[in-house]
Structure formats: C-alpha cells, structure tokens
C-alpha cells in the first residue's frame, strides 16, 4: 500500500495535478463542442437547411420602412443586416444623448436643497428603474398608438412638422454642392478652438493671465461659417412633407416604434445615469469642499475645479457601462417591430431562410464588437482620469 502510494506520489505534485486538471477540462470542452457540432450537422441535414453564408447574397424580398441607406425589396439579405445595424446604432446614439441629458438633470436635482425638486427626482428614479424596460417599451408604444391621430387629422406645426399615427414628419435638409465647405469650415473651427483653449491654458499656467475664449468661439463657429454660407448663396434647402392621398410623402419621418423605443430607453437608462452622477458627487469628501472654501474659491470655482473633477472620476465608468446596456437593450425593439438588427435580421431574415446558427452568431458578433469597443473606450477613459500621483 505504501509502495503503491509512492508510485503514484507524482499525482500529489501541484504542477502535475494542475496539468492533468487542465487537460481534463480541455478534453471535456472539446468533447462538448465535438458532440454538439456532430448533432448540429446531422440535425441540419435532416431538416434540409442550407449552411454557410451564401444566404447573405439572396434577395430579401420584404420591405423596411426605416432605412438610412438605400434599400428596396430586391436588396440582398446583407443589405438588411446593414440597415438593421445602422438603425441599432442610430437609436442607441440618440438614446444615449437623451439619457445623459435627463440623467444629468435628475441626478443634480436629486441633490438639490429644494425639497420638492429632490423628492421629485428620487420619485422619478424609484419609479422608472423598478419597472422592466420591456414593459416600458410596450407601454409607451401603446400610449403612442392610442393617442396619436389619423394622418388626415395630423397635429401640425408651422405647416412643416406633422405628427400622426404613422410617426413624426420633419422637413429633410438637402445639401447642395457648396454646403460641404461650410461643414468643413465649421469642423476646422472646432479644432482651432480646442487649440486656442490649450494655448490660453498654457498662458494662464505660466503667467497667471487668463484670456477669454468666447470671442474666438463666436468668430470661428458662428461668424465664419455663417459668412461662407451667405457668400455661397445658402446652399441648403428643405424638403417639406406633404399629405398625398393616404399618407405624407417627402421630408423625413420618425416612426412611432422609434419614438417609443427612444422614450423607454432614455427614461430607463437616465435613472441609472442619475444615480451614477449622484454617487459621484456624494463620493467627494466633505473636507475637499471645505478646503476649497477655506482657500477662498467661490462656489462656482469650487464646483468646477475641486468637486466635479473628482466626482466625474467616480461617475464616468458606470455611465459608460450604462451606454453599453442601453445599446444592448435596444435589441428589445423586436417586441414592437422597430427595424433594428435583432428585429429584421435575427427576426424576419431568420424566419425566411431558417439559418439560425449563422444569423444569431452574426448578431452576437455585432454586439460583442460594440461591447469590446465600449470597454476599450472605458479603459482609455479610466487611464486618463486616474489619480495622478507625484
């Protein structure tokens, strides 16, 4: 017995155990994939599905109401993928902007010394973050559908904006050939202002003389582009929507599905952003504010120079995570049929061609890429805002 034990004593070495254990895990995972793949291929063959990505070139054959790039029923399934992807990015981006705005207002209101405002803000947070997002999407969609009027009885603003059951119709800006120059000048103006801002800061740091940037901003961002726009003869005009038989034609439109989704996503995510901002501001030590006061900073300076830089360091990482969550939650649009990736690609296209594996893997790959990109941004931001030790 003792001899047997000494023969197998090598099993008691940590390295060898670790090696055997990992080998076992590797084999188990490999076996799982092997047998799953085996079953998968026999099942697919039995059901007569095609495999591979050829389906992407087939004609889609269904119409999509909302597309920012050219699309028709004769477009390919790959085109559907792009349309869905762009719509996902569109609704996520607009949602992020609104969620940040609402979250910022609510988060600051939550800390207000005005009793009514702060109670209202915390009521908002408690109400909307404890209702599932899918329920909120369905709820707003339902509310929009029952409250919006028929196209013939649209609500109008200035004969150019129309709101009805089919959505909101807005004038569509159409740029003529010269307009690109105005945009370019404007962008150059932004870059220049950033450079001037840096220059002014450097001057302030070395001499203590502070300069004002507002004059430069007015010149670079308003006056120059405006002058150019006038000189080129106003190279931008609007295509107005107009009622034709059953519905509005022309202009650009936002569907009720888009609006409901946008509303739910921004209201829901704003509660988390508000909480992040609140906990960020609360995380700043009381002594910091007192020290700022003792140094004679005004309350505005204390907020700008002492509190906010420290608060944002705590608040920004969870806020970026919420941006990712919002993007992932936009996939719930499939419940109301807004034409984003999951709805039209993993929904309609999947039902038509039946190649579930390829389609769902492609969809997952999109979200994985987005979340990797956002974590990359998060890492960079974390690196930038970390406490700089001497």
């Amino acid at each position, binding site marked *: 017995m003792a001899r047997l034990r000494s023969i197998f004593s090598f099993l008691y070495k940590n390295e060898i155990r670790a090696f055997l254990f990992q080998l076992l895990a590797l084999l188990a995972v490999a076996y799982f994939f092997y047998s799953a793949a085996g079953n998968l291929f026999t099942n697919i063959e039995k059901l007569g599905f095609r495999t591979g990505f050829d389906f992407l070139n087939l004609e889609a054959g269904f119409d999509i109401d909302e597309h920012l790039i050219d699309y028709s029923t004769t477009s390919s399934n790959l085109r559907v993928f792009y349309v869905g992807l762009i719509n996902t990015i569109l609704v996520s981006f607009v949602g992020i902007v609104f969620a940040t705005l609402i979250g910022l207002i609510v988060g600051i209101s939550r800390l207000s010394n005005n009793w009514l405002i702060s109670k209202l803000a915390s009521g908002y947070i408690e109400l909307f973050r404890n209702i599932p997002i899918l329920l909120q999407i369905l709820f707003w969609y339902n509310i929009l559908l029952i409250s919006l009027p028929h196209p013939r009885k649209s609500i109008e603003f200035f004969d150019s904006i129309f709101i009805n059951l089919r959505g909101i119709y807005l004038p569509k800006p159409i740029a003529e050939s010269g307009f690109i120059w105005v945009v370019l000048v404007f962008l150059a103006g932004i870059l220049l202002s950033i450079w001037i801002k840096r220059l002014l800061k450097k001057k302030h740091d070395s001499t203590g003389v502070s300069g004002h940037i507002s004059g430069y901003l007015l010149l670079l961002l308003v006056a120059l582009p405006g002058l150019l726009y006038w000189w080129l003869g106003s190279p931008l005009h609007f295509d107005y929507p107009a009622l034709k038989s059953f519905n509005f034609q022309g202009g650009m439109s936002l569907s009720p599905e888009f609006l409901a989704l946008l509303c739910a996503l921004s209201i829901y995510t704003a509660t988390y952003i508000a909480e992040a901002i609140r906990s960020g501001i609360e995380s700043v030590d009381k002594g910091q504010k007192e020290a700022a006061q003792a140094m004679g900073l005004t309350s505005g300076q204390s907020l700008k120079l002492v509190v906010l830089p420290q608060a944002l360091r705590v608040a920004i990482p969870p806020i970026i995570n919420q941006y990712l969550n919002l993007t*992932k939650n936009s*996939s719930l649009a499939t419940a109301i049929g807004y034409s984003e990736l999951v709805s039209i690609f993993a929904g309609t296209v999947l039902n038509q061609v039946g190649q579930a594996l390829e389609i769902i893997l492609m969809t997952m790959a999109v979200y994985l890429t987005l979340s990797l990109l956002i974590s990359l941004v998060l890492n960079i931001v974390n690196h930038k805002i970390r406490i700089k030790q001497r």
Partner: protein
Amino acid sequence: MSVFKAEIQQKPPIASVGIFAWLRANLFSSLFSGVLTVSVAYLLYLSLPPLANWALFNADFVTSSNTECTRQGACWAYVIEKIDLFIYGFYPAESYWRVQLAFALALFIIAFMRLARGRQWRFKAIILAFLMYPFVAFVLLYGGFGLEVIETHQWGGLTLTIVVAAVGIIASFPLGILLALGRQSKMKIIRLFSVLYIEFIRGVPLITILFMASVILPLFFTEEMNVDKLLRALIGITLFQAAYIAEVIRGGLQAVPTGQFEAADAIGLNFIQKMSLVILPQALKISIPNIVGSFIALFKDTTLVLIVGLFDVLAMVGLSSSDENWLGRETEGYVFVALILWIILYSMSKYSKNLERRFSTEHKI
C-alpha cells in the same frame, strides 16, 4: 431691595421657526429655487388631477364587458375579471391550490429561517430546505406522485415569472461559483475558458441568448432529447445569469485577504476544503448585497421570455386584451402589471440597500 422682574421674552421671528422656516429653507432658499418650486408645483397641479381622475375617480370597477365601461377613466373591471390569468396563466383552476401551496411553502421556509436565527441546527436546516424545496415545488407545480400532470405550456402569468426568476438564480449559482473560481485560478487554460465564457455572455444581449436557446439549442441535441420550451428558456437564462453571478462572486473572492488563502494552505487543507470551509463562506458573505442586486436585474430580465413565446405576466396583457369582450384595454393591463412588478422590485431594491448598509465596512460619519 431689588426685585427680579421677568422681562417679556421676545418670540423668535416668524421666518426662523416652524413651518415658515421649513418652507424658506427647503422651498424658497433663493430666487431660483423659489421660481423652480412654483413652476414645478404648477406642472404637478396640471398633471396629477387628470391622472387621479383616470385611475380612480372616473374609473369603472364592476362591469362585465368593455362596452359597459362607459366612464372616461380606466376600466379596472377588466383587470379584476382577468386576475386569475395574470397570476396563474392557463393553469387549471381546480389546481390553483398547488401553486398557492408551493408559494406558501417558500414563504414558510423564509419565515422559519428568520425565526431559527442563532440556533445550532439552522445551517443544516437551510441546506436541507434548499435541497428539498425545488424538488417538492416541481412535483407540486408539474405533477407526478399521484398528482395530475400539468404540462409547462399551461404555466403562465406571475407564477411563470417567479418560477423563471427563482430557477434562474438558484441554478446559476453553482455554475457562477465555478466560473468565478476558474477566473481566479492560476491554471491558464481554465482561466482562459472562464474569461471567454464570462466576457462573451456579458457582451451580448439576453435576447440573443434566448433566441440561441430556443432556436439553436434543439439542434445541438439528438432528436430523442426533445427539450421543453420552458426548459430551453430556463437553460438560456441560467447560462446568462451564471456569467453575472460569477463576476459578483469574483468581487467577493478578491475581497478576501491573501492571508486567509495562505493560512488555509498552511494548515494543510486541500483545494476543496480550503474553498468550501475558509474562502467561499467569507467571499459569499461579502457578495450578498451584490447577489441580491443581480437577482433584481434577473427578475427584470425575465419579462424577455415573452419574446420567445412563453406567457409570463407581461405577455398576459396582450393575450387578455385580445379577448373580444375587452378589446383595447392594454393601457390598464400594462399599468396593472407595472404596479405588481414595481412593488416586487421596489421592495427587493429597498432590501438590498438595507443589506448594503448592514454589510458596509466604511466608516460612518
């Protein structure tokens, strides 16, 4: 002889005590604050009465169909008539007692655990209850052992929502612990697998995983293993939740001081003893508030099962308002379901805040 005469005491100015002081400090501390108060109060005055009228004063509570809901407000009669559908789904009415018994048993176990606090046998009782209860509840809900079998496609409503959430949290726990340990392991391949799994799951929306579970999972199995629709969704939710639980537990593991690991090694415990007797009890205790937080997120996510064709409490709105007697009553349905879920989620989040406060080691000022 001087006589002490009490002076008449002056009262403090009216603006510094009582309700006026409170109003001044909390509502009108500055011009801006005052303007804000007045405008917000006006907005509330504009919006609250119509809402209250709709929900209560102009609402119908007792009618037998849509057409009899003649007042302007909500038609709660619809919710009252469909309440069984919202709670039990298509579960046969004569078997409602089985659902009730299962939930009563769960409540009893929770109450029992609180009462037994401090007793020696409490821990064993908890383990026993956790091992026995899922089995008992399954027999009660599904059938067998002399009870009539009720197929899972008849399950629905709030019952289904709670079943999905409960199974999700309990089943994801062991897998989550394994993944967390794997991610902390020194063995490279194990760590790689754990990291890949966790990051993959956390990077994609739950809905794609549910699609995967409902469309692709059947293809992975041989044809004899015909997997039930509910079970498929449960597998998807469990795999999803495990990744999140793993991250929560990893946070707990990282908070256990290295000395504890070294001490366990020093007294000669093997890996399993070290983890189960020394490290995990501490790590799990630290992560309890976050586990509750992750359970709240899971509970919200269970509503997604309606997209893969299960009838949870939210799906009942669409279903019941397509009854021709009650057409177009979605709004009441959504408000009712929102209220139920809000009460559950709000009390859970209060509970988790409470736990966080109790477990926090920060210095209280």
